[in-house]
C-alpha cells in the first residue's frame, strides 16, 4: 500500500517538475517550486529520511520562496523569447528545434537508467553501503556517542570534518552574496551603471564596501517606482 503512495507522490513530483520547466511566467514557476518542495519533503518522509525531510521543510516552506521572490523583484518575472539561441532581435529568426540536444539527453538518460539496473535494490541488506561503516554506526553509536538519533551522531561526530566543511560552505555563500549584491549595484566592468545612482570609481571599492559599510541608512525608502507584479 505504501508503495502506491510512493508512486503517487513521485508521479506528482514528475508532473510538477515538467510544469516548472514548461511554464513561461517565472512567478508561476516559483509557486510550482514551492509545491515541488512540499512533495519532496513528503517523499523523504515516506522513505524514512526524516532529517532530510526536515531540512527540506525548513528551507522550502519559508525561505527559498522568499529568496526566489526577492530575485524576481530584481530581474522581472517573465521569459519572453526562447533562451536557447542568441539571435539578433531585429531579425526574426524562427527558434531552432533542439532535436540533437534532445537526442543527447535521452541517450544519456537511457545509459544512466541502464546503469541503475546493476545497482542493488532499495533497502537491500547486502548493499555495499551497508557493509562498510554503517553497521558500526548503527551498533556502536549507542554507547560510543550516547545519543539516540544516529543521524546526529554521524553528522556531528563521526563525520565532524564534513560538517565543518559544510558550515564553511554556507558561510562562503553569504560572503558571495554580499560581494555580488554589493558590487553589482555599482558599475559593471564595462563602466555601465547597473543599479543605483552612486558613482564609484572602481569595482574594488565595491568589494571593500561589501564588508565595510554598515547598512544602517536603509529601510523603508521611497518607492522605487519599480512595478513588481507579473503583468
Amino acid at each position, binding site marked *: 500500500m505504501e508503495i502506491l503512495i510512493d508512486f503517487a507522490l513521485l508521479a506528482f513530483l514528475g508532473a510538477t517538475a515538467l510544469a516548472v520547466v514548461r511554464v513561461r*511566467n517565472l512567478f*508561476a514557476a516559483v509557486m510550482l517550486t514551492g509545491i515541488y518542495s512540499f512533495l519532496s519533503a513528503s517523499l523523504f518522509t515516506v522513505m524514512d529520511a526524516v532529517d532530510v525531510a526536515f531540512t527540506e521543510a525548513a528551507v522550502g516552506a519559508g525561505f527559498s520562496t522568499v529568496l526566489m521572490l526577492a530575485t524576481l523583484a530584481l530581474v522581472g518575472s517573465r521569459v519572453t523569447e526562447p533562451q536557447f539561441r542568441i539571435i539578433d532581435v531585429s531579425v526574426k529568426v524562427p527558434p531552432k528545434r533542439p532535436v540533437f540536444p534532445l537526442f543527447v539527453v535521452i541517450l544519456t538518460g537511457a545509459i544512466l537508467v541502464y546503469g541503475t539496473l546493476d545497482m542493488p535494490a532499495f533497502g537491500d541488506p547486502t548493499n555495499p553501503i551497508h557493509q562498510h561503516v554503517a553497521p558500526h554506526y548503527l551498533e556502536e553509536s549507542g554507547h560510543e556517542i550516547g545519543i539516540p538519533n544516529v543521524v546526529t551522531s554521524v553528522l556531528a561526530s563521526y563525520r565532524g570534518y564534513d560538517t565543518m566543511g559544510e558550515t564553511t560552505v554556507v558561510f562562503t555563500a553569504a560572503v558571495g552574496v554580499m560581494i555580488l549584491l554589493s558590487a553589482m549595484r555599482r558599475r559593471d566592468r564595462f563602466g555601465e551603471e547597473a543599479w543605483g545612482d552612486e558613482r564609484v570609481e572602481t569595482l574594488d571599492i565595491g568589494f571593500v564596501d561589501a564588508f565595510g559599510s554598515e547598512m544602517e541608512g536603509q529601510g523603508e525608502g521611497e518607492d522605487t517606482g519599480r512595478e513588481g*507584479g*507579473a*503583468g
Partner: protein
Amino acid sequence: MELAAAILSGALLLGGSFFALVGGIGILRMPDLFTRLHAAGITDTMGAGLILAGLMVHAGVSLVTVKLLMILGFLWFSSPVSTHALARATLAGGQEPFWAEDLEIPETARIPGRPSGESGRKGEE
C-alpha cells in the same frame, strides 16, 4: 472501549477525507478566486480538523496528542490569516469578485480608494 475508539477515529477520518475531497473539487470547479478561497477554507477547517481529531483518538492520550493539538492550533491560526491576506491582495491587485451581472458590486467588496474597473490587473497573466 477499544472498538468504540476505533470506530470513532475511523468515522472522524472518513469525515475529514470527505471534506478534504469536497474542498478539492471546489477549488477546481468554482468560478473565481474568492469562491475558491471558500472551498479551500473547508479543507483547512473541517478537513484538517476532523482528520487530526481522528488521529488523536487513534493515538490515545500521550505526547503525540499534544503535538497533534499543536498542529491543529497552528493550522487554524495560520490558514485564516493567509486566506485573509490572499483575498486582500487579490482585491488590491484589481480582481473583482465574481458577481451576477444584474447585481451591483457593494462598496465593501472593493479596496478603499480604488475605483472599480480600474485597469491595474496586476495578477492577470
